């Protein structure tokens, strides 16, 4: 991926960000003070227990939820000052759930992300680009299928192809691996590495600790009570921090560059 002037990657800066559930003033406090700087080419994973605010944080960065306090700055401008058309060329948001009320083919769902950010592009070229992104996500054979007939993992790959095809350097992926098998988790990991090698930035919510380690250069860990730790993955993804956040026993094996996490899934009576 090479960026043209309109899609130039820009860094993301969160300054003392506070978020509440539902984006309203009286929702439960999810994040009380989060400050971070995501530079070009970094891959951030977002971890935390159910309801800790992973999706809300991604939606706040996407511009869909207003923060309770603090600021989000994309490039040199605060997020609230971006027009939605301009923002669409800078960040792509891949939600966790999809609801497809009407029949539509897989390539057409990908194509609308291309068309939205580049309306002047020729129709045949748009279709070709959409199909090539589906192929890159190993969904080329599904291009003409109705998205409503796809399996969970297939639909998810179509959604990921849509997010990549939008051509925005900042990717916000909400649990993109929740339905993916091992091979496709590896594929996602490879694509995200290429993305960041081209100076794109990714923020990815995940639950699988080992996948998180493999994907990430940096990590954010929300504890669900307002607290958050963030920084390079080595500092954030530790057995004690993860164990405290999720309330489970975690053992960690260091294997050179890799780190393996094991969560004891059997509760023992003491």
């Amino acid at each position: 991926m090479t960026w043209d002037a309109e899609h130039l990657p820009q860094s993301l800066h969160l300054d003392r960000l506070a978020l509440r559930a539902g984006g309203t003033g009286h929702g439960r406090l999810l994040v009380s003070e989060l400050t971070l700087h995501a530079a070009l080419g970094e891959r951030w994973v977002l971890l935390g227990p159910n309801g800790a605010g992973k999706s809300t944080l991604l939606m706040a960065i996407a511009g869909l939820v207003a923060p309770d306090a603090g600021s989000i700055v994309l490039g040199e401008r605060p997020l609230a000052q971006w027009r939605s058309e301009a923002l669409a060329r800078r960040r792509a948001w891949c939600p966790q759930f999809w609801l497809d009320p009407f029949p539509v083919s897989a390539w057409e769902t990908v194509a609308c992300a291309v068309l939205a950010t580049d309306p002047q592009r020729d129709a045949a070229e748009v279709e070709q680009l959409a199909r090539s992104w589906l192929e890159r996500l190993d969904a080329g054979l599904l291009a003409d299928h109705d998205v409503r007939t796809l399996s969970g993992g297939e639909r998810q790959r179509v959604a990921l192809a849509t997010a990549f095809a939008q051509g925005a350097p900042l990717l916000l992926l909400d649990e993109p691996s929740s339905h993916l098998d091992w091979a496709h988790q590896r594929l996602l990991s490879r694509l995200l590495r290429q993305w960041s090698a081209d100076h794109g930035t990714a923020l990815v919510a995940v639950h699988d600790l080992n996948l998180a380690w493999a994907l990430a250069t940096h990590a954010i860990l929300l504890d669900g009570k307002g607290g958050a730790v963030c920084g390079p993955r080595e500092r954030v993804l530790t057995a004690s921090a993860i164990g405290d956040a999720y309330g489970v026993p975690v053992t960690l094996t260091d294997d050179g560059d890799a780190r393996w996490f094991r969560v004891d899934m059997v509760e023992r009576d003491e």
Partner: protein
Amino acid sequence: MTLKPPPLLLAVLVAIGGMLLALALGLLSGSSGWGWPTHDIFWLIRLPRVLAAFGTGAALALAGALIQLVTRNPLGDPHVLGVTSGASVGALSAILLLPAGVPFGPEIGAVLGALLSMTLVFSLAWRSMGRGLALSAQPGTVVVLLVGVMVGAASGAVVSFILAVADDFKLRNLVFWLLGDLNGATLWWPAWGAAALSLALVWPRAHELDWIARGDAWAWTIGVSVARRRRIAILAACLATGAAVATAGSIGFVGLVAPHVVRLTGLRAARQLLPFSALLGGVFLVLADTVARTVVAPTQLPVGVISAAVGVPVFLMLLLRRRA
């Protein structure tokens, strides 16, 4: 299952052919049988009626397609917005209160009622049409639908009241109006005008309605002004519905089903769905009305009876054949 739309040229030819055939059938058949009508019957009765039927069907189908898209709800129907019931209150009040023989009394009453209920729905649901972008996969426009249903329910109560206090002579007129009837529909152009206007309102950015149907929050993140598109589409749907109801009373079925039949043929993108739904709705209502006024001639049935009696089994057949 793969999805391939039919060639557009073929679809256009079939649609135009069907339209001409339906208009010819409607113009050439009458209560006294089949054949070329006299000059006066043709120009003063049959042509306006056939054109009114076409315009009404087109406007309802267009409104149905728009509501289905922006509310992301396959069960969307022009009558869920409360405009139909509002127009009914206006028309029935006019029939009840005005002396017989006031020209276009019920029609003007229906237009006023439709405008009033539209204003009510819009002022109550204005904020919610812009809100509801984030935080869930649920359709963000549930509030509009519920407000529409509530305005409709309130108007329905007024309709019941009018029916209860009306004398026997007026009751027949009232009931026929409620059933949906093209008998005596002489003004054909308002429905055509409203259908054309509402199509023109949404046309420039019609493709964005497809994106909204795929997820309204997501559509916003790819740069669509979701709130504005949604408000314009609902306004267009209200205008089309109001004009259709003022022309022919409350005709069900066609607004819900015409868009689905068009989708079953593979014409799914809004730029195709909207015009072809309008054409199909118009053709369907012309045919239904032709049957309604000839099948037990000289008695004329309300067109709503025929549109449901023919349309429901045909639609179920199409739907279930696909699934099998």
